[in-house]
């Protein structure tokens, strides 16, 4: 069995959760506090990747980031390499998959924070950003970390979006989930089983961490 694809999954998921973390916490903060017209629609669009078929998401990303799209061409002009069918593409795919999990969990935790605490911070001289960073963030850290763990687990197992925009190129974009598919197709059963068990262990560990972080307080009588 080779660890290459699993190591790549791990690298891609780490990079993806870093991007999804920054983006997701920022968007969750805006959704939790700000009121603007069309907020519910924005939220529905942000969470849609949780329920849309990965092929649909992959298709959108190909349209938006492909070599013929303005964004794709700008990126290629800037870096000399396209987004699609590269490792960057695999990271984008994993980020899109992870983002809604981070936002949903972080937003729920932020909405639990008593608005009077934010009000107190404001009257004590803190601007909106300082109140967010020093009161809202630390008090919702459990939910945020849980969202990051869920998003990481989702990114680690990403298959469909990755296949659509990064392909299945051994050594370049072939992550663990894709390598399992290849191994099964080629009757390399032992290899598939090894990777399946390792990915399962990682996912279960992430979910276990989530339940530890969001554990309900025990109520006495």
């Amino acid at each position, binding site marked *: 069995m080779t660890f290459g694809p699993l190591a790549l999954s791990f690298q891609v998921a780490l990079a993806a959760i870093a991007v999804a973390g920054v983006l997701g916490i920022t968007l969750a903060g805006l959704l939790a506090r700000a009121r603007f017209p069309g907020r519910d629609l924005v939220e529905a669009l942000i969470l849609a990747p949780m329920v849309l078929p990965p092929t649909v998401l992959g298709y959108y990303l190909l349209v938006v980031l492909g070599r013929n799209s303005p964004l794709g061409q700008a990126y290629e002009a800037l870096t000399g390499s396209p987004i699609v069918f590269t490792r960057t593409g695999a990271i984008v795919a994993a980020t899109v998959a992870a983002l809604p999990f981070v936002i949903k969990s972080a937003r729920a935790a932020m909405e639990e924070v008593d608005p*009077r605490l934010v*009000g*107190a911070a404001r*009257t*004590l001289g803190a601007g909106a950003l300082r109140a967010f960073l020093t009161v809202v963030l630390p008090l919702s850290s459990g939910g945020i970390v849980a969202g990051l763990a869920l998003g990481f687990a989702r990114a680690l197992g990403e298959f469909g979006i990755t296949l659509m925009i990064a392909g299945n190129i051994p050594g370049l974009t072939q992550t663990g989930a894709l390598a399992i598919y290849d191994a099964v197709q080629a009757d390399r059963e032992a290899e598939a089983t090894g990777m399946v068990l390792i990915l399962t262990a990682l996912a279960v560990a992430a979910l276990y961490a989530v339940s530890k972080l969001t554990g309900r307080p025990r109520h006495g009588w």
Partner: protein
Amino acid sequence: MGGDLIAAIHVAGEPGHPQARLDAEIRVPPGITVLFGPSGSGKTTCLVTLAGLLRPTRGRIALGGQVFFDSDLGTDVPPERRRVGLVFQSLALFPHLSAEANVAYGLPAGLSGAARRDRARHWLERIRVPHLAQRKPASFSGGEAQRVALARALASEPRVLLLDEPFSALDLELRLELAEEVQAIVTELGLPALLVTHDREDARRLGRRLILLSAGRVVSEGVPADVLG
């Protein structure tokens, strides 16, 4: 010090705050003015509006020469620049911070770490809870929490003090003790202070002036004994 707090506030019920209705003109000179009225009369709405946490539909709020809010001029100074010391009824102590860090939160920026600690300690001592410095709010008794909240508001060097039922969780003896301390500090600093209560005895005892609020309107104001009869 800054002079009188003068406000003419109209708050129509908002989507997020349908119960918040207010149509009141008030004046708070240095010293304690009691804002008295039954539940739902608009007392808390009045305080959060003065502090800048709720935007009035229209009106004007000014402290001495500084305008905080004026719907005609389009002025709306954000809460962090009003220097209003607000003590919520729920106290709103930061649960993740020690008493000392709670009190230090509102200290002016630019102080060194040591100076911040000294200043926070000073206020905790002044309000007679220095032993709580390193402890977090979850372990405080009702009276201790109220003292820390008061110390936090005072440490931020407010130019006006707004207290929402600050003694409600205390028994009579502690209530009198803390009320005297607040009175002494307010007098010493020459601060205008607006103290909300729905307790008739507290209203009589604590303020030199009293504003009687009912259904969002000022019904009467003057010396507590006269207004309450």
